[in-house]
């Protein structure tokens, strides 16, 4: 690492998010890195995971083939388990939990986050025909807190931490915190505030990789 710091990998980002989720919270983990975060929440820390397709109290993937229940899949259609205390509901009741403001936290993947809390995570073009929204808009609007996990920049080095999103919005002003492979940023009334960085990274270096102005 000639740059003097080491960006987090997917697992590292997932672990960093997981460290901040306290016991007792009701949490939805979006598709991708957010889903990985579940593996970094110790079982004894009771966090109740919600899955849009009607599961509350979701557990990890089956430990063995004997435990596989093909009727029990998560929102990414991966096979999962149910914890003691878990239950099933239908889709409208499941989204009542989301839209009714009952989730303490939703962790979503993102394309772009703006300093006003706007999130873009479902489409890169307003004219795209092959769209997919899934539960992202409901979760972004409905959860008490929305955290976003994403690479700090695109693969070709474009910033994702922006003054204003250029992609179509998922929801306006919904994000309260962003976890990237380089830093953790809070969205405040005064814009992005850096609350953590990977070792060896300077604020100036982080700012150079961000469009929005960062404060510390």
């Amino acid at each position, binding site marked *: 690492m000639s740059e003097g710091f080491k960006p987090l990998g997917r697992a590292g980002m997932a672990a960093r998010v997981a460290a901040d989720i306290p016991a007792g919270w009701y949490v939805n983990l979006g598709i991708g890195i957010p889903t990985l975060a579940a593996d970094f929440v110790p079982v004894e820390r009771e966090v109740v995971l919600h899955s849009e397709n009607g599961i509350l109290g979701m557990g990890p993937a089956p430990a063995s083939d004997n435990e596989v229940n093909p009727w029990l899949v998560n929102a990414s259609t991966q096979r999962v388990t149910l914890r003691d205390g878990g239950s099933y509901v239908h889709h409208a009741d499941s989204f009542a939990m989301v839209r009714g403001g009952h989730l303490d936290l939703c962790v979503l993947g993102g394309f772009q986050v703006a300093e006003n809390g706007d999130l873009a995570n479902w489409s890169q073009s307003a004219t795209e025909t092959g769209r997919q929204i899934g539960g992202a808009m409901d979760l972004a609007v409905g959860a008490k807190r929305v955290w976003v996990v994403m690479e700090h920049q695109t693969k070709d080095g474009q910033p994702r931490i922006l003054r204003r999103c250029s992609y*179509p919005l998922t929801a306006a002003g919904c994000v309260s915190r962003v976890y990237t492979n380089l830093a953790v940023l809070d969205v405040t009334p005064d814009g992005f505030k850096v609350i953590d960085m990977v070792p060896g990274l300077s604020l100036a270096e982080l700012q150079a990789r961000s469009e929005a102005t960062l404060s510390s």
Partner: protein
Amino acid sequence: MIDKRVASMAEAMAGIRDGATVLMAGFGDAGAPHALMDGLIEQGAKELTLVVNSAGRVHKAGEPTSGVARLIELGRVRKVITTFLRENSVAGRLVREGRMQAEVIPQGTLAERLRAAGSGVPAFFTPTGAGTLVAEGKEVREYNGRPCILELALPGDVALVEAWEADRWGNLIFRESGRNFNPIMAMAGQLTIVQAHHIRELGTLEPNRVVTPGIFVNRVLHLPVGDPKLPG
């Protein structure tokens, strides 16, 4: 005697017309009424409006598609209302060519519109989608300091539903995450058709456990079709 059981797929599919709006339950493979979808393909109705969580996926060249994706591929679908369109490249092409319409909407809004249709709520406000492309052309009104958009109930002429257990009154119990859209599509369908793994004697389904009471069900076809598969 009330007996909603039907003896054949032909009987289950009877009367579904060209131009019908068809609600198709399921999330992933769990709780998806695959056999009924195949029955609908066979039955031949066209110009359909499909309401389904995912528009399905197109497999590699040479592999047969099925269900929703097959109906679309066959040109039987006029419009699809869904939350996931990306994995069906055929659907995307048909939309670009103007041969099929697609309305991609938030999953919670889809669920709520179905539940509204089944519950006599013609329209409701929701903050989901406000300030996004989803809000285009929709009335906006502020509640609790947030902009909300007006969404309409989404009823179906037909609902295709999968259940684990059923009785002759049409009471339904689902399995784990196989519940998903099934109960609310059953409510929202004018003609609700069920494929059930098990038929139980009337009175043996525990009354506190019944999820969909028979009032929402018209036909039950006994089809023990095995476990859901992973997407592949």
